[in-house]
């Protein structure tokens, strides 16, 4: 008979455990949503991305990997094409125009959008000029190829 209170106790423990587990699950769920929607109180900027990584860390990962890609790709460029390489890298670095377009885009004119407009102009000079000069050079090289 001494077994019965023990069984009772076991049952109680199991109930408590399941309750605890449920609470834990609830809490972790809350923690998740808190992570998703957590804003720093003064700035109301989301501090974390959905993935739980800060955007800077994600950016840094991409940056480092892209540096390696750049390293291996550029070493394979033949030295005779180093001038066109400079011209084309110059053209693609004008991808900064993405930022300029966003700056220039608001409906209402303000200081930022005017500055953004100039940035768009400068970057597009570079895009058109860079790709065309590269094209001119490469045409000359192609022409002399047997």
């Amino acid at each position, binding site marked *: 008979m001494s077994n019965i209170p023990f069984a009772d106790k076991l049952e109680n423990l199991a109930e408590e455990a399941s309750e605890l587990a449920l609470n834990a699950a609830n809490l972790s769920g809350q923690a998740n949503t808190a992570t998703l929607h957590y804003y720093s109180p003064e700035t109301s900027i989301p501090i974390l991305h959905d993935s739980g990584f800060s955007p800077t860390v994600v950016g840094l990962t991409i940056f480092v990997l892209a540096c390696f890609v750049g390293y291996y790709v550029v070493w394979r460029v033949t030295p005779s094409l180093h*001038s066109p390489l400079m011209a084309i890298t110059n053209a693609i670095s004008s991808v900064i125009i993405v930022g300029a377009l966003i700056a220039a885009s608001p409906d209402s004119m303000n200081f930022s959008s005017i500055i953004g407009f100039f940035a768009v102009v400068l970057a597009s000079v570079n895009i058109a000029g860079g790709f065309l000069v590269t094209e001119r050079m490469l045409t000359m090289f192609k022409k002399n190829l*047997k």
Partner: protein
Amino acid sequence: MGSTVSSFLYLISGICFIIALRGLSHPATSRAGNYCGVVGMVIAIFTTLTLEVVQNYAIITVGLLIGGTIGTIIARKIQMTALPQLVAAFHSLVGLSACFVAIAAFYQPEAYSIGNKLGLMKTGALLEVALGLAIGAITFTGSIVAFGKLQGTITSNPLIFSGQHVLNALMCGVLITLVILLCYSQSPAAFWLIFFVALVLGCCLVLPIGGADMPIVVSMLNSYSGWAATGIGFTLNNHLMIITGALVGSSGAILCYIMCKGMNRSFFSVIIGGFGKKSKNIRKSQSESNQISVKEGDAEEAAFMLKQASSVVIVPGYGMAVAQAQHALREMANLLKAKGVVVRYAIHPVAGRMPGHMNVLLAEANVPYEDVLELDEVNIQFAQTDVAFVIGANDVTNPAAKNDPSSPIYGMPILDVENAKSVLFAKRSMAFGYAGVENDLFFRKNTLMLFGDAKKMCEKIIQYLN
């Protein structure tokens, strides 16, 4: 368009840029690569235009049209000999537009969702804005000074004054302090001070660097323009800008490394600047003391020697670019080829004012791609060469780099023209090269000096060849 779709399109655009660079591994694939780059840029622009924040299409269209027209006109009109200046000028535009984007982001952070409605920004975002701004500003003024030096509006001699390095170090210190200050206070004063100090620093960094070190400077600025794009990419959390900036940055850094190696100098010594200034006086007095005469020849003799040769290697240098002698040179080479002479071109990695400068000029003059050899390929062939025709080059042929440990160019890889049976030097005068050192080659028995303008000399030789 949803942010997932736009991120995906940006990724495709990044891949296009990588393929574009990959295409440059051979001239046959290079043009396809360039088109790929254009496609990547078009995707990037259109993707951005479909973003929700972009509303005012009129002003954007106007901006794109103005910029595109100016760029097209410049690219079509530019002379190939002015290419180094053009590249420097384009770098300055990238730098300035990076600054502009940084300024716009600082004053309108909510447009890029890096700040709240009150315009308050996170410390990380402020740091990234400051970096983008500073690198952009250094690229901008540095490239303008480089442009001036290449164009000849600013003296290409190194500009050195006492306390220069202290001043530069001081400015770097001030810049770092200001960045820290900005991160803590987000004060517009600190922001603008960073801008102005970086502008001045950009000038001061390039001014002490002399003309023949320009390939290194141009590569360095190329690299900076990439890092500036990366900085802005971090600010705006745009992965395409980070990828592209990293590609461009590492490309410039590699070119810089190749150029430094071609001169056997450390990047740091180039940045410190002033190369070839001190050694000039010492060397001059030395050459005065040992008056050995050089053998001077004329075009007729040169034409005779070239005609008799069975193989000729032409070594072009910056002097050829200045005299615009590439067309006359190719004509001369064609005549020799018609007479059964094997003609090749040897290009030193640092010849000219930007990486690959000579290759472009020779390509412009329709020199067959296969005839143009690099340092390692050609050096093993000089022993079987009858005539080495050096036109407008000097330091890159100086044997002192191999056998005089006291020479400032000691250790620099050179073209072994001294192994050829005879050497012709087409030069304007006996003046020193950039390194300010005497070239022993001028005084050797098998060397013939041809004084005068490189282009006129080639034209005269052509007359005698006919």
